[in-house]
């Protein structure tokens, strides 16, 4: 298949593995930010091909994993109301809230639906004027423009029955939080290519400078990941820091300017809570006052629902790259994709789930 097979050829892959092997003379720890990248790494077996000098740790870039527990509880409270249709991306439905997940609410009669595009939720509001349609707007900068567009469109159509439950998070503050954490052992980053398609990569330049780390904007195919890693290891070996762009076929330094304008119009930056991590300053989006009418938390008065996370799960350390999933005493024993103890075991992009599904038990 065109634009896919080119990035999955065994000879090319081996060439880059060999190049990384030749380049790495000392041990290095590199974090891939995005859950999609983790998924590719484990699914194609790249993690097992790398020389022992290079350790990959899996970052917090899985939207399902970092959406805070109380947001799930709020979504469940909304979905339980008879007048609402709760609309979500597919893999949010399995994430456990405090007592149950959205799949259970659906089984008990809640109207919970899956869409591929937030604009489909707007269409649903148009065709169901007697129902309240609530879109569960989660994700990083990648999904934010489409979610912003849904609100924009709803305002254009003057809809009174559409709102979003917003839980958007941003990558750069999370990277800063990880680098600034006392236990951090991350020495270089593969930045999330798709996030940068929207935002560009200039906002990573001050981070690279401040913490003196190489950050390589990287794509999602096996060859992308290996090339990104090769570039990161080369920079580390040469003691260079700064931002480089491996994913140049999709990412420009300035990113997608119209999308950014839309984001600025609809959202403002606020502190956000991350599941398994805690509050990170200025790390998320919330609706601007001009769009408060479309804020589901206000409309349904669920903003007060809070939840406390507690258990043996070491998700925080995993999302920060301090420990590997298999180092958790619950991994594969008390915690499996069927019975997730923690968010990283839920989504296919979660590090624990990827390890479990693809047999990384050692």
């Amino acid at each position, binding site marked *: *298949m065109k634009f*896919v097979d080119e990035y*999955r050829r*065994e000879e090319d*892959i081996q060439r880059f593995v060999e190049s990384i092997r030749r380049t790495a003379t000392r041990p290095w720890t590199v974090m891939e930010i995005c859950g*999609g990248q983790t998924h590719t790494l*484990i*699914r*194609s*077996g*790249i993690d*097992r*091909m790398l020389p022992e000098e290079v350790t990959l740790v899996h970052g917090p870039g899985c939207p*399902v994993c970092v959406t805070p527990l109380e947001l799930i509880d709020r979504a469940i409270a909304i979905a339980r109301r008879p007048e609402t249709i709760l609309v979500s*991306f*597919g*893999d949010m*439905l399995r994430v*456990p*809230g405090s007592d149950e997940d959205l*799949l*259970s609410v659906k*089984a008990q009669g809640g109207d919970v639906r*899956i869409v*591929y595009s937030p604009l489909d939720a707007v269409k649903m509001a148009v065709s169901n004027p007697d129902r309240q349609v609530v879109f569960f707007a989660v*994700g990083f900068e990648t*999904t934010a423009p489409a979610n912003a567009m849904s609100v924009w469109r709803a305002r254009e159509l003057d809809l009174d029955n559409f709102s979003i439950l917003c839980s958007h998070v941003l990558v750069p*503050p999370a990277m800063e939080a990880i680098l600034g*954490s006392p236990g951090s052992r991350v020495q270089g980053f593969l930045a999330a290519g798709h996030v940068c398609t929207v935002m560009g990569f200039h906002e990573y330049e*001050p*981070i690279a400078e401040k913490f003196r780390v190489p950050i390589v904007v990287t794509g999602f195919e096996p060859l992308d990941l290996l090339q990104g890693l090769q570039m990161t290891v080369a920079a580390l070996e040469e003691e260079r820091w700064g931002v480089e762009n491996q994913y140049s076929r999709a990412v420009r330094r300035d990113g997608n300017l119209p999308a950014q304008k839309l984001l600025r119009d609809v959202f403002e930056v606020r502190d956000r809570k991350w599941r*398994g*991590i*805690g509050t990170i*300053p*200025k790390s998320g989006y919330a609706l601007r006052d001009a769009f408060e009418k479309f804020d589901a938390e206000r409309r349904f008065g669920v903003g007060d629902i809070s939840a406390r996370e*507690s*258990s*043996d*799960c*070491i*998700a*925080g*350390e995993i*999302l*920060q790259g*301090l420990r590997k999933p298999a180092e958790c005493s619950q991994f594969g024993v008390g*915690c499996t*994709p*069927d*019975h*997730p*103890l*923690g*968010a990283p075991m839920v*989504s*296919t*992009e979660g590090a624990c789930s990827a390890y479990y599904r*693809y*047999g990384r038990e050692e």
Partner: protein
Amino acid sequence: MSSEKPVDFSTASCPIPISEYPTVLMAHGGGGRMTQMLIERFFLGEFRNPALEVLHDGAVLEIGGSRLAFSTDSFVIQPLFFPGGNIGSLAIHGTVNDLAMCGARPTAISAGFILEEGLPMEDLWRITRSMRAAAEEVDVPIVTGDTKVVDRGKGDGVFINTAGIGVVPAGVEVSPLRARPGDVVLVSGSIADHGIAIMSVREGLEFDTTLESDSASLAAMVQGLLEAGGDGVHVLRDPTRGGVASALNEIAAQARVGVRIDERVLPVREEVRGACEILGFDPLYVANEGKCLVIVDRDSADRVLEAMRRDPLGAEAAAIGEVVEEHPGKVYLRSTIGGSRIVDMLSGEQLPRIC
């Protein structure tokens, strides 16, 4: 960007699990581990007997000196009409194939209809006509049936249950328990066509070409391959719900063997691969309705493969892997780029990813 004080990760923790669902979820019908749990805990737990324990596509019973295969299947598909078939043809193919997977020649079929008030007669006509055509094609009469009507809103147009019996010829011994190290794993053609075709219609996805379901009766092809392979044919399985991955996992677990497959030789149509890439699906877990997996003695593999390829439905048949002694109960895949990974049983349903 701000970093007044470092975020404290040491106290980070995760939520309490949902261990048991108090109600049935859609995922219990997905053909993965949740379905398996339901079957094992409830149905096998209560109904246990030697014929059922094999957990094959049908039961094989000794009656009056001959071996009869007996199988049943229910069809609740939406949309009722889809590219490549409809609920009627699917209901016939499904049961015919389940019988064929027992090594049986289908003899007779029953059909039970649950009709929803308001179903257009024209739709029912189209469905029954295709059932007749599908049954005639394999020369199996529909010999008994049942009809019920439920209130509008209590059904989904029409649900169909079919059951069938067939005779297993002497010398044919097909069972998931017969998979053994050294055997070769064959598949009769491209995988994931049915699931992706249904998904595209349901979600309104458009591609350059129309994706068609592979819904078809495998009886003739299976007869041909059994004639060619005889006792060398150890296991037959049609990878419907849960796809090739779930079918191979079930076989590996039951026969206590390992299975290795090679991603490079898995037949997947270009457009199906594209759809899977877009939707974040793995074709190994997507349903098929006109394909079968054959696990065959290494010495008979070439003969069986040739026989399959002579049938139009098996023209693209391929050897995709082998049965091994190592890692019993587990399926491993060699990835396109030379890595390796486990192919686990699907947990619930495949859900589209966020990004």
